[in-house]
């Protein structure tokens, strides 16, 4: 089931925009993650698709059918809440069959058919023996799967998940994540998932929709987001980021920090910021440079704190012998931003510094 959202906006009391002109297309069979910090409007968008929070203006289509005025009951979307919202007075089996039990007599399957469906779903969520248990007895991971089975019982083709892994411990999270992805592929679902955890999103989804302050900032797959983030926020949201302010002049990016080598770029002249991941640098011995010392180690990687005069930054590199003396930083690749927008248009918005290093004269300190 495809989902099409056009110019969706939602005001809350006080005039605040919680959704600001949001447009999104989720094709049939896609697995999309809505990511962003809390308050970005992810859950509101998800609830608007389900019809739980009415939009102030805009248009929602599910499977080519306009949703305006259609109550949530008739949208047939599967929704898993962050707190699971299981009915605690019903057994697991009755929780799962709830969506079938409430159907009018004419369209309700027979008792035997419902029981068969419940057994099938219990097997699918790998809890075949817990049909008679009450939700209180289940662990967080089990409750989550029961909530999912309940959402799937009525056979929706669109699954909406609100922070489905939020309440799970890290070990279970990974397992449930993989299982959920398999389920999505196996049942041919279209899934939209809300999370504030970018790593989780990168793991499980085909596409990430990054939201901030009620707007979609960028909508792309993980690789594209990392290579060409639309704003410094996207870059920072997706992982640890080092920011180097500077200027572009005569085809060279000249950092403001001491002990950082300039590199060539085809960005326009002017104030520019270079954003890099901590591993996108190399160290070069430089008698006039700053001190570097190891501050941590994880597996084959080590972290070094490098002093840049005014401040110090932490970089990451494969473990090797500690530098014997002062060092300078050479940025291997960077995304350049001017006024919060990418500085370089086109297919290669980052600058490859390695090619010009030989020509670069280190900044005098």
């Amino acid at each position, binding site marked *: 089931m495809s989902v099409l959202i056009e110019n969706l906006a939602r005001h809350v009391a006080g005039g605040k925009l919680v959704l600001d002109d949001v447009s999104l297309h989720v094709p049939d069979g896609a697995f999309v993650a809505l990511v962003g910090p809390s308050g970005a409007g992810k859950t509101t968008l998800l609830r608007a698709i389900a019809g739980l929070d009415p939009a102030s203006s805009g248009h929602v289509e599910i499977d080519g059918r306009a949703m305006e005025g259609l109550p949530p*009951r008739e949208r047939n979307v599967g*929704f898993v809440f962050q707190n699971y919202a299981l*009915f605690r007075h019903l057994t697991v089996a009755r929780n799962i069959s709830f*969506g079938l039990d409430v159907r009018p007599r004419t369209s309700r399957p027979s008792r035997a058919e419902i029981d068969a469906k419940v057994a099938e779903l219990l097997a699918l969520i790998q809890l075949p023996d817990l049909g*008679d248990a009450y939700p*209180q007895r289940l662990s967080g991971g089990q409750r989550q799967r029961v909530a999912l089975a309940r959402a799937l019982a009525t056979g929706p083709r669109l699954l909406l998940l609100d922070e489905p892994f939020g309440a799970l411990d890290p070990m279970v999270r990974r397992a449930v994540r993989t299982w959920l992805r398999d389920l999505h592929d196996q049942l041919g679902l279209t899934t939209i998932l809300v999370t504030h955890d970018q790593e989780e999103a990168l793991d499980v989804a085909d596409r990430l929709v990054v939201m901030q302050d009620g707007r979609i900032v960028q909508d792309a797959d993980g690789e594209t987001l990392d290579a060409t983030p639309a704003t410094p926020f996207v870059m920072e949201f997706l992982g640890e980021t080092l920011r180097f302010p500077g200027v572009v002049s005569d085809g060279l990016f000249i950092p403001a920090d001491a002990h950082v080598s300039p590199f060539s770029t085809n960005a326009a002249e002017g104030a520019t910021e270079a954003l890099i991941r901590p591993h996108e640098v190399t160290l070069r011995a430089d008698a006039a440079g700053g001190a570097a010392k190891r501050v941590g180690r994880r597996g084959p990687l080590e972290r070094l704190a490098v002093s840049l005069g005014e401040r110090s930054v932490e970089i990451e590199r494969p473990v090797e012998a500690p530098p014997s003396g002062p060092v300078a930083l050479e940025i291997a690749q960077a995304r350049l931003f001017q006024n919060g927008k990418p500085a370089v248009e086109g297919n290669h918005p980052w600058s490859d510094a390695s090619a010009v290093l030989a020509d670069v004269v280190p900044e005098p300190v």
Partner: protein
Amino acid sequence: MNLSTTLSPARGSAAPRAKGRRARDPLPGFRLALGATLLWLGLIVVLPLAALAVRPWQEGASAMLAALNDGRMFAALRVSFQSAVIAAILDLPLGLILAWALVRTRLPGRRVIDALIDLPFAIPTAVTGITLATLYSPQGWLGAPLSRLGISVAYSVTGIVAALMFVGLPFIVRSVEPVLRDLPPELEEAATLLGARPWQIVARVLTPVLLPALISGFGLAFARGIGEYGSVIFIAGNQPFRSEIAPLLVVVRLQEFDYAGATSIAFILLVASSACLAAVAMLRKRAARGLVAEGAA
């Protein structure tokens, strides 16, 4: 290692001090609290009840025997209990809807409604009685159109029920409201997304979870209904054997200076109410247990 060395001297010094006191006192001041509670309960509740239980027998068993043979008293008891049950039952759906509206919706004037609900607690019951009697009298705002339809509320059991519903409603609302506030609204949203209609959500999702609170509220409204006097006597008409309530009969006996007879009725009323409330409490316990049942044991 560090921890144990720092802890051991403290433990050593604490041990002799604890020796004098009762070793297993979990709370400081436990005895004081227990003593105050018992004294309080004894003075306020148990002492008057004991006096009530003793009084009818002070002039021999004859007063009690006379009361037990009095058809008028049993008629009054029946009127009291019947109207209290009917009023409490009718209050249940009303109270549930009101509580739901207060908790789940953003009604304009919600605070005013919230304050209005408690009003029956605050108004002197006699004022309530006179107000209701005026309202439902054959010339009243509600009484006139109703009497044209052939329904007479004032001076009948219907009037008693109307008055008891008025005083009982806040008990239901205030019992249900906090429990409902604790229920995540996602429960109702999940149900509606699964295709449940509003009445199915009330019947299948809300009522089972709210049942203990509903029963509690019912018990309170019912108890208040049995004991209610001021708001009822003006509207009831007070015809013996038809619309005379038990508390009124107590007053009638008192006015006849028949103290033994009055306390006999009061004592029977007390025993009957206690039995009813015990039944309600048991029912609530059962309903609450159903919610946390660990499978079909």
